């Protein structure tokens, strides 16, 4: 069951689209319009880096004076801070990350998703229809995200594709975020590898020589932007997850080429996979903070475009962290690892996989006996995400909040012995880890920073200071903040 609060359902009901969410963010002071004219490069990336540095409270930023793109609008940073995520989930600005994590864990459901269908001729996304003379470079205010990228990337699209061998299966219809590099006025490459659901669709289509039609959705419902990046099962619908987790409807309609798309999105680019063709793609500044090199990637040709009047092009800054990418997917990366572990080890308290998509993770656990936390760590490494992403894993006790790095560093400082560090070398890893000697291979490192327990020798006469905690302390902290605010006047 979805355990979200009444208040969060009220908030969710007000947010049916990107535009609704921007309005809500504006009411909280979390959305601004850049006042000056900007050059596509380097101004946009510079401004987005500056905003992204504030992972707690950075705002979404709209650009509507982009030189050479009169009348075009571009927004980024929509999921760029935890206060923006808190707003989407119905919490006050500044809500601790740990509370947001538990909220998302409590919502992890696809029960009763509300996915009303709007007839295409009544759907906002089809307000303007383009059937010929496509030109991506004219339509979208494109810009180079990082200086050495190979082109002007679209980094936050939700891409819809169907399983070519089971095209009527709604669950197997995939919605994912894949980086897109426009190549010509009506062509683009899309980066999906065989392990991705969409990569499977592409391989199957080429193998059986059947067409693969896709819909590239831009300017999406903020929950879709979050959940299209979440690893869910192959036959599970990202739409169902997103609507289920919001506890509110996400309206769908059909694209011109027959896929289920969001009815209230800003734009949909319909395209078809060009079998057998690969073009140079990249480099692209990726989430580990390094460029993935030039590769030969699959090509798509545009067959139709629909958009709202005066559409907003939503994009992202991604690169060396902290960036919007980290906030966008961090909690949704952490929650499924927690869900798997919790079933087998109820002692697991929380999972923080915010850092570079979980290349470093921190798990808090109620230690049962000496060495227990290491076994939990090994299980985490065999979760679907852990297999290749959880490179460095820090295990801490339940009295340490894994989302509070001051506490984690304390645990590392005082609870780690050299023989608590395990290295599993020559394991599977991600292709784009800049430290990898062989891309796709690497190590898992477990640092057990939990308390020593019997039968381990505990050492000297050690008692940990009981630090006052709880509601009384939290209220005191609030009081001190308000006294401080008063003193500053």
């Amino acid at each position: 069951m979805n355990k979200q609060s009444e208040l969060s359902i009220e908030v969710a009901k007000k947010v049916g689209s990107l535009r609704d969410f921007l309005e809500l963010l504006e009411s909280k002071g979390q959305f601004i319009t850049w006042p000056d004219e900007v050059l596509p490069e380097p101004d946009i990336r510079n401004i987005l880096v500056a905003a992204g540095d504030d992972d707690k409270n950075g705002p979404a930023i709209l650009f509507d004076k982009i030189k050479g793109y009169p009348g075009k609008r571009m927004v980024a940073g929509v999921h760029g801070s935890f206060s923006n995520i808190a707003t989407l989930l119905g919490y006050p600005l500044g809500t601790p990350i740990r509370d947001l994590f538990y909220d998302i864990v409590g919502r992890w459901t696809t029960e009763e998703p509300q996915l009303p269908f709007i007839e295409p001729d009544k759907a906002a996304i089809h307000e303007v229809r383009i059937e010929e003379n496509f030109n991506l470079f004219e339509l979208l205010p494109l810009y180079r995200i990082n200086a050495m990228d190979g082109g002007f990337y679209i980094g936050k699209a939700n891409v819809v594709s169907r399983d070519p061998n089971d095209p009527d299966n709604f669950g197997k219809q995939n919605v994912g975020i894949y980086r897109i590099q426009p190549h010509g006025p009506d062509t683009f490459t899309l980066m999906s590898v065989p392990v991705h659901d969409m990569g499977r669709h592409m391989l199957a289509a080429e193998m059986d020589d059947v067409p693969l039609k896709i819909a590239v959705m831009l300017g999406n419902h903020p929950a879709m932007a979050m959940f299209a990046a979440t690893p869910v099962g192959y036959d599970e619908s990202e739409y169902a997850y997103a609507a289920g987790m919001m506890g509110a409807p996400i309206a769908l309609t059909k694209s011109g080429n027959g896929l289920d798309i969001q009815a209230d999105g800003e734009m949909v680019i319909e395209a078809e996979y060009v079998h057998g063709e690969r073009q140079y793609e990249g480099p692209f500044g990726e989430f580990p903070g390094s460029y993935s090199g030039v590769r030969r990637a699959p090509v798509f040709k545009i067959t139709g475009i629909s958009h709202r009047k005066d559409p907003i092009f939503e994009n992202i800054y991604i690169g060396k962290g902290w960036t919007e990418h980290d906030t966008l997917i961090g909690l949704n990366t952490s929650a499924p690892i927690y869900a798997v572990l919790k079933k087998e080890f109820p002692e697991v308290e929380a999972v923080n996989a915010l850092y570079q998509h979980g290349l470093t993770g921190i798990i808090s656990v109620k230690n049962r006996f000496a060495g227990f936390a290491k076994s939990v760590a090994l299980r985490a490494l065999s979760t679907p995400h852990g297999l290749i992403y959880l490179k460095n894993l820090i295990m801490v006790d339940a009295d340490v909040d894994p989302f509070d790095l001051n506490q984690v560093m304390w645990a590392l400082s005082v609870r780690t012995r050299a023989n608590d560090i395990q290295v599993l070398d020559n394991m599977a890893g991600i292709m784009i880890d800049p430290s990898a000697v062989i891309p796709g291979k690497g190590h898992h490192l477990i640092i057990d920073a939990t308390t020593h327990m019997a039968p381990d020798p505990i050492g000297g006469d050690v008692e940990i200071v009981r630090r006052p905690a709880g509601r009384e302390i939290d209220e005191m902290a609030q009081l001190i903040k308000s006294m401080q605010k008063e003193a500053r006047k």
Partner: protein
Amino acid sequence: MTACPRCSNTNATALHEGKEGATVVWTIFNCPDCHYHWRDSEPEESINPAKRKAVFQMDTSNPDKYQLVLPVRE
């Protein structure tokens, strides 16, 4: 035809002009060989071959050097 800042081939063509009123304020170019795209208003580190780091330059005479993302069906 224009020289590509990345692969130095000279087949690049203009793809789109950004305008303010009737004035062209920048032009996007496309190299059909290495598929680099650039705007002539960008900082030099992206578009001046002399200022670009060598590691980002491309040699299109050897396509096999660049990994295939999805295997192509024979």
